[in-house]
């Protein structure tokens, strides 16, 4: 369980988060809200890219400091960014293992990349998540949006992430790719992973989420189970025309 408590963050005097409390449990929590609600800032804080001005982050009861993406990863938090954060000219396997390459050791101090092992692992992981990429030696720039998304997901899968942060994961995907993506996310949830997804896609929220957190102007205005709310009510909460449930 990952909890954020009273998180505040301002950029040059403009408050992006004004004291946010959210509990993320196993399953999928969708964070919805209008533009500028502070969703992306919250995701950046959870992935260690941005540090909060105030507040506390607690994982399984113990407070943690997420001062870098490496730290977040070492605590089992994996992020899929809106812009995918892939190195286009590198191949699929290199991207899955970027920053955590498998190496072979020679004479104790020379470390060489074990590309063979990385390629095999990447291929097996992609196969396990059921996403077809013809060849893990392909540069990522030759892949479609959905395949690129799969590379990022394979990263999370391979490194056994406990918490997965998804920021507008299907914004750039076609219907077929979105369906494939949805299947993989379900797989993660079945493996008892904590998935947190920021999105504007309300039908997707209703379909996938277990819990919904509504944010507006840097605050959490509602938290509820997906069964307790309709899409219309959700929309009302997002734009502020309905009272909290």
């Amino acid at each position, binding site marked *: 369980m990952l909890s954020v408590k009273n998180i505040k963050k301002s950029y040059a005097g403009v408050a992006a988060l004004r004291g946010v409390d959210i509990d993320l449990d196993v399953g999928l929590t969708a964070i919805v809200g209008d533009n500028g609600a502070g969703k992306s800032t919250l995701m950046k804080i959870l992935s260690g890219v941005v540090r909060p001005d105030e507040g506390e982050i607690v994982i399984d009861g113990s407070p943690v400091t997420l001062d870098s993406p490496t730290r977040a990863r070492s605590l089992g938090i994996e992020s899929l960014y809106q812009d995918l954060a892939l190195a286009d000219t590198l191949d699929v396997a290199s991207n899955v293992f970027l920053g955590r390459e498998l190496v072979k050791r020679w004479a104790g101090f020379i470390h060489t*990349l074990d590309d063979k092992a990385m390629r095999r692992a990447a291929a097996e992981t992609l196969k396990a998540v059921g996403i077809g990429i013809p060849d893990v030696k392909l540069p990522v720039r030759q892949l479609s949006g959905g395949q690129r998304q799969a590379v990022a997901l394979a990263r999370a899968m391979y490194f056994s992430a406990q918490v997965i942060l998804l920021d507008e994961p299907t914004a750039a995907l076609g219907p077929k790719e979105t369906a494939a993506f949805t299947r993989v996310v379900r797989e993660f949830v079945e493996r008892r992973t904590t998935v947190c997804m920021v999105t504007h896609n309300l039908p997707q929220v209703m379909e996938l989420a277990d819990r919904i957190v509504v944010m507006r102007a840097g605050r959490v205005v509602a938290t509820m189970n997906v069964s307790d709310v309709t899409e219309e009510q959700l929309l009302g909460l997002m734009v502020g025309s309905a009272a909290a449930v």
Partner: protein
Amino acid sequence: MTSVRERVRRGSSSSMTRDLLSASLRGRLPVVLVLVLMIIVFGITGQGFFTNISFQNITSSTSLFLLIALGETFVMISGGIDISLASNLAFSALTAGILMTKMYHGHGNGALIVIAVGVITTIVGSLIGMINGLIISLLKISPLIVTLGSWGAFFGLAEWLSVKYPIGTLPPASFTFGNDGPVVAWIVWLTILCVLIFAFVLARTRFGRYIFAIGANREAVVRAGVPVRRFTVYLYVISGLMAGLAGFISTCDFQTASSETGSSYLLIAIAAVVIGGTPLSGGEGSILGTVVGALIISVLENGFVLLGINTFMQLVAVGAATVLAVYFDQVQGRMRIRAIAMGAQGETSE
């Protein structure tokens, strides 16, 4: 999930040499063909192109700018550029010349002096690179501007050095190092060693992988938790180190140095890198490509000499070849984008 990880840990045999070669050759075939074609053309038309002296000329003159082209290849794959190389080389060459003049008093061949000065000069070059790297990564100023600034600064300092401390008699060992050696000059062997080390680092190490990744998407590498700033400093230190080494070698080779030493090498080195297939945008490139690019330039220069074409025209040709290489690269890039767009269209229309 762990099982996938466990399974792949097992059994991974090495095919390093084959991998290295195929990785380096990928997409470089056209450049290699150009080189072969040029050798054939000059071999037929130029009198004495295949003689020993011509071979010595090509390998020695290639060595000097290939050394700085190696460092530049790393920097350019990472999406940066180092144009301070020319004056770093001159400054280092003068440092080497002045130090050897001061230390050598006519006793013996001065081999120890040459080695010591070689080490010192390389350190001087590295320090200049470190200044570039620190400014670029800490102050986040464009590499073009930073290295342009340091190019000017060290050109000025080199001029000051050359006026203040004239270069006299250098140790005989320095001449031997610059001009003699088994089959080819020692400096050529040193260059071959450097080529192998650079190729290995680029293709087989984490650092090499991050050079590509930084050039492709710097932000992605930062988010992957890689200390990008530190690696950026390393890159410019390496580039400076190679300029220092080239400066030292140049002094040994020509037995003198001036603030103009290597002034045309910057263009030639960048030309070698670009002709060798490293785009200015970074993210791609190879050491083999740079070596082939350097050889193309050398063969071109030697061929021009043999054909009796005015030496000034050589730089004109190198400049034109560089622009052409970049143009072809862009055309290729556009074709790739079109191919992907068409592929995506096919997918949605299914």
